[in-house]
């Protein structure tokens, strides 16, 4: 049974690696893909979302790979929301700030320098997306041991 768990873990690690390369290729050749799908005239906002979503998934897979490599011993599979909130709230906030006008509401009477400073900090969306992805991926806990039932029938 332990061998089966090792096999399952190994398969998941390989699958994550392959997915990482596929998503990375999609990200690396995104401009070429855009040229190919230009005839469909998709909105720019949607394409930008797709781009950063690919980076997010890439980060998620890297985080998931880290968790699989760690061989954590957990009694059941779950999603650790605490870790996600602590590690991922900064990039999530930065993404929200970079794509909304929320900052203008928070900063009273912003000068040109202040706007520039905020813009440079929050505009690194690719970095924020990958950080958020890794935070999400490393919050996944998978139990590979056999499921134990709470109730057991006895003669």
């Amino acid at each position: 049974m332990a061998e089966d768990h090792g096999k399952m873990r190994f398969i998941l690690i390989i699958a994550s690696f392959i997915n990482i390369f596929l998503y990375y290729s999609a990200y690396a050749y995104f401009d070429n893909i855009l040229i190919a799908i230009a005839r469909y005239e998709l909105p720019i906002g949607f394409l930008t979302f797709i781009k950063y979503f690919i980076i997010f998934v890439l980060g998620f897979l890297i985080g998931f790979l880290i968790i699989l490599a760690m061989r954590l011993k957990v009694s059941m599979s779950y999603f650790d929301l605490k870790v996600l909130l602590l590690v991922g709230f900064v990039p999530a906030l930065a993404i929200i700030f970079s794509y909304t006008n929320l900052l203008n509401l928070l900063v009273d009477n912003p000068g040109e320098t202040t706007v520039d400073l905020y813009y440079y900090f929050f505009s690194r969306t690719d970095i924020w997306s990958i950080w958020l992805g890794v935070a999400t991926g490393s919050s996944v806990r998978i139990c590979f041991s056999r499921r134990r039932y709470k109730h057991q029938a006895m003669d």
Partner: protein
Amino acid sequence: MRIFLIIVSFINALLYMLIYAYYDTIISFIGTTAVSPLIQNFLKIAVLIAASFCIGLMSMLLLAPGMRRSRFDIKNLLLLGLVPFIFLILSPGAVTDLIASRIFGNRESIRELLFYLLSRQALWSIWFGFAIGTSVRICFRRRRNKHSLSHTPGEKEIVKTGQDES
């Protein structure tokens, strides 16, 4: 101690991100001629690796996997960090050009393909930084000595030798 380290890592990650975000501004303050472009590029990557190391360390500290002793997991680093490290070395261009010219006969399409594939240095450096950060294992338990000295009055000194029980 754990919470203190989490806070320190978090602050450091934000500081390194600030440096990365304003890197061009900082370089223009120093003067672009003072530092060679190669060093500038290296520093940019190093800052990004340091930022992602702090994030990786932070998530590792939050996980608290219950280590017996503090160590650096080389196996984990090799498994997770080998690929980004190789791509990071190949990304500057000279090595890629050499591969393209020697193996693929210097074809333009292959060169472009390799360039696009390897040029995302930010991604590779972040992945590599995470791999290093998550390979750190820190034990927060009190250290137990392998050998302890026990002495009772009227008896001989007994030196107890045993395994670390933690």
